């Protein structure tokens, strides 16, 4: 997954259009490199296979009225 530069190039091309972003030609290589680094990090996490009973960490507090939803704001 992480070394398939052509696929990441194609992914970026499609995704930036759908998101309304512009990547100038001189930024392109750097953005793809960062995508590949992010993919490597994500792959490392996914390879671990945490138990399916392990739910995502974020919690929403319906009682909070603060802008940042942190307990002490």
């Amino acid at each position, binding site marked *: 997954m992480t070394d398939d530069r052509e696929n990441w190039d194609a992914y970026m091309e499609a995704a930036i259009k759908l998101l309304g972003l512009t990547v100038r030609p001189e930024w392109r290589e750097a953005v793809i490199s*960062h995508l590949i*680094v*992010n993919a490597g*990090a994500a792959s490392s996490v996914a390879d*671990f296979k945490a138990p399916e009973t392990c739910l995502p*960490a974020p919690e929403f507090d319906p009682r909070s009225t603060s802008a*940042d939803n942190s307990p*002490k704001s």
Partner: protein
Amino acid sequence: MHIDPLYGTVEEIAEAVRLNEVSAEDMATLALQAVDAINPRLGAFTDVTTDRALAEATEIDAMLARGEPLPPLAGVPVAVKNLYDVAGVTTRAGSRINRDNPPADADAVLVARLKRAGALLIGTLNMDEYAFGFTGENAHDGACRNPHATEHMSGGSSAGAGASIAAAMVAATLGTDTNGSIRVPASFCGVFGLKPTYGALSRAGVTPLSPSLDHTGPLARSARDLALLFDVLRDAPMTAPGPSPTMRELDKGADGLRIAVAGGWFREKGFPEAHAAVEKVAKALDVSDEVELPEAGRARAAAYVLTAAEGGAYHLERLRERAADFDPDTRDRFLAGALTPSAWVTEAQRFRRWFRDRVSALFAAHDIILAPATPCHAPKIGQKTFVLDGEEVPTRPNIGLYTQPISFIGLPVVAVPVWLDGARLPIGVQVIAAPDREDLALRVAAQLQEDGIASAPVASII
């Protein structure tokens, strides 16, 4: 107290003002003069709030003249990372784009608490753009330089928050820490930094980077000051004069605390100084136990994914409209982050819960875990790579090697500054505690400072 009041700690300055040995106006003037004289060589400040500082000082002096009790930070010069809203000042967030915004109409909650406690706000501080970096370099405002060796990085992203204290322009600052942005500049600049438990301090009025991981916290030149600041910032009930609730805990020292050194990931990769600093601290505390935080490398990877994704999403509109106005060093990473598949984020958050549970279990047998804060002394400004374990790797992301797994699960940490024999630059050690046990980490930090193992001398800037 030192002959130059600005070299005093927060506690010493507040006491001197309370005893009328120095006026608050004198303290404001001294700090403003220090910024005038020193800042051009460091680039730590981006805005100086002269009128506000002098007005706040006048108010403190008037209270004293009326015989009223002074609040705990009366007359103490402070400054805040320019990520915090300050009424009347545009919140730059280290960016060019945000300086087109109108000035903030109110202080961030923590800035308001400093003001209520009598602190004098001297200005706002340089940082990596949108808090997305560890170097203190900034394409718009210039690099923030290390006061102990100005050709070296201050560390980031709370760059000016570390440098301004190390240079004694102010006595305390506020920074933020998503992946290490308080602990890295504390390590590189040789000051004490507290990253409290996730959620312990307000983030209201602070521009986010990655809300899942963002923390706020203080930096200062003493562990006792961090305890006092923490109590002020969390709005703990206080009676003045006298030590604040967390300060009172410090008298217990490190005695009786079960302390271990982090092994595995935290013993690997770093330069010799990172491990030597931990050894020095461990020896002083007579620590021989070692614990392993399982899968710490994956924890770092998961924090990396969350930061990229949340940062990219937060800045999506700015990336659409004004991508060319970003600092090139952050723009390309935010663009890549904006393209993150959602499944990666969910997996990272699932792993976060797993990792939290495993590390929590370690605190059944230990109160404190020691780990390096940074893999090396401050690199030179502009240094793009360094060699870790024989492999040349990019400097920027790898500075956070040891801090990211800890903030990933929101544990409280005090970064303590250590000077190794013959070293020209300091390096930090993380003193890590269980959630909501800032008091324990601060007890160890205070003990280390009292024993001379950790210290934050003011830099001699040549």
